[in-house]
């Protein structure tokens, strides 16, 4: 099975556009670097995406768990800004004397001298907001694309993953295949286009073709969403993390930028300030095709077992 594929076809570092057969004159791989440390949660990216791509609005409600009113990435939400409300905590508690009041003391101050607007008297709030604009990751090894039985999902010349509405037959296989839970079959609202068809971020394929940047990154007022050549973005991200570490933000980390990770690196990657699962990301996603050769061998062995078993059942006395 493995020999039917080239090295790294199923996982590992790879130039996805070259692997898909684009020649040397293809453009460089494009992607997003989403720096969540400067996201202000304005949701301009969500709106710009909906406007440009004609993505229907199908609900306007709250979940009663947070101020996030768009819930998740899904077929009608190609950008999603997560709002995470976190109680403050000591940076790293080494049990050493500090020059700053620690959180317990801060808690005490809070109880005594609360100002009424939720901020303790020293002006430092007792919680923090994490905000992060999530999007399709445009994986190097895209499980959605690999499992699509119709060829509706394709790799663009920019190394991104795009769905063709007129070819998708709505089988829904890409939905459980995505390790990030991005792609989804559109259920409604009634009368909107492409109902029953898999939908997700196209990285504004139409805009890229015209030399433009995607709507979300153009609309982002803080440059939290940065668009560009993936290679260059990765360097920029490394520099940003180093700067944050220097500034003492030791929780800053990159997510999805490593071409040796479980999905071969993602075209859209993130700078996070906490563990990935806090933002609703899988902690260590692996493309399902990594295990495909083994699955194929197991299924073949099972098939042979069935054939042999049926043959054996007919051996022996009549009756």
């Amino acid at each position, binding site marked *: 099975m493995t020999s039917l594929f080239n090295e790294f076809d199923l996982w590992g570092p790879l130039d996805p556009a070259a692997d898909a057969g684009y020649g040397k004159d293809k453009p460089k791989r494009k992607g997003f670097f989403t720096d969540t440390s400067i996201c202000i949660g304005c949701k301009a990216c969500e709106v710009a995406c909906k406007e440009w791509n004609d993505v229907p609005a199908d609900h306007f409600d709250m979940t009663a768990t947070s101020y996030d009113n768009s819930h998740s990435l899904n077929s009608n939400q190609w950008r999603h800004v997560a709002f995470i409300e976190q109680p403050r905590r000591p940076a790293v508690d080494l049990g050493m004397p500090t020059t700053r009041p620690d959180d317990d003391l801060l808690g005490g101050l809070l109880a005594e001298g609360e100002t009424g607007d939720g901020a303790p008297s020293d002006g430092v709030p007792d919680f923090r907001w994490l905000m992060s604009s999530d999007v399709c990751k445009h994986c190097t090894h895209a499980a959605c694309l690999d499992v699509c039985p119709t060829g509706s999902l394709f790799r663009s010349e920019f190394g991104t993953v795009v769905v063709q509405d007129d070819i998708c037959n709505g089988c*829904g296989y890409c939905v459980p*295949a995505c390790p990030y839970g991005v792609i989804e079959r559109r259920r409604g609202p009634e009368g909107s286009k492409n109902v029953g068809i898999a939908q997700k971020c196209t990285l504004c394929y139409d805009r890229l073709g015209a030399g433009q940047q995607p709507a979300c990154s153009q609309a982002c007022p803080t440059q939290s969403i940065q668009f560009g050549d993936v290679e260059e973005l990765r360097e920029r991200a490394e520099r940003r993390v180093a700067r944050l570490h220097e500034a003492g933000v030791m929780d800053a980390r990159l997510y999805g930028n490593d071409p*040796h990770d479980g999905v071969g690196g993602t075209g859209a990657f993130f700078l996070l300030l906490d563990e990935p699962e806090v933002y609703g990301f899988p902690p260590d996603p692996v493309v399902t095709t990594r295990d495909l050769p083994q699955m194929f061998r197991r299924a073949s062995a099972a098939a042979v077992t069935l054939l042999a078993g049926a043959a054996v059942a007919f051996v022996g006395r009549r009756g």
Partner: protein
Amino acid sequence: MSDTLAQTQGRPPRGSRRGGGGRRRRGGERSMVPEAEFTSYYGRPIVKPSPWEADIPAYLFAGGLAAGSSLLAAGADLTGRPGLRRVGRVGALGALSFSMAALVHDLGRPSRFVNMLRVAKLTSPMSVGTWILSAYGPFAGAAAAAELVALLPADKRRGPLRLLELTGRPAGLVAAVFAPPVASYTAVLLSDTATPSWHEAYRELPFVFVGSAAAAASGLALIGAPTSETGPARRLAVGGALMELAMERRMEQSMGVTAEPLHAGRAGRLMRAARGLTLAGAAGAALSGRSRVLSALSGAALMAGSACIRFGVFEAGQASARDPKYTVVSQRQRMKREGPARHRPEDPEA
């Protein structure tokens, strides 16, 4: 676990919702692994459950039934058991038609099935399965047609009908060659996803599914074929049922935390029903001898057991996708065991 997981994260979960808890098995049984604490975004799912409904497990069951029936029919044809052959061939066509109807219902429009034939993709079990079915279907259909022609009075079987009757054996044998992949590819169909309880089952699920296919087809034969010819079906029923039960047990042991959904809620009830029905059916098949009524009852139990295991595995996967615990905890545990997934050139799988 709760402590160790918190340690790997460097600190206990905070801010966003804590997971875990409330998932203990009923009846005081100890769950497979201790309850885990984990962090998630307000408890929302990370991976998406498949949009599939009852059509798909029904399709899995009918596909297995068709495949097993074609194998029994071919064996019966070669060993001179016309009654068993008829049930096998006609049953295979019936089950195949049912599975196709379920698939088209899932897609919404018959014309959408045609899009499946645009490409052949080895990385897509659904594409591979479509092509396997496209190879298997016509032969299974021709064998069943030959069987039906044989029911006509002799003076009506002339010309093309006679030709059709003659193609019965070769068509049935070709169908039997394609049948085993029909029965086993459906396991890869589920495993080749990010749905935790389906993916983690990839090692044993094909064996569970072919065992289940053998049991279901033998069950149909026990119901429909004359008892004087059902010897092979009884043996296949016992073998298939034992394989299904043994491999299902092994599967649960190798799945880690993602085996939990197989015990909880609707999936748990279906899996328990599958075990009971399959065991009862296998025992009945082994012991019922020539009793027509007992044979039919065991056959029905075997078929119902096979259906239950398909629906049970399906439901467990859906449940595992809806709860972020199975994505986060299983990946955290793997990272703790093996380190983060990194592609290294010296990897044997590379």
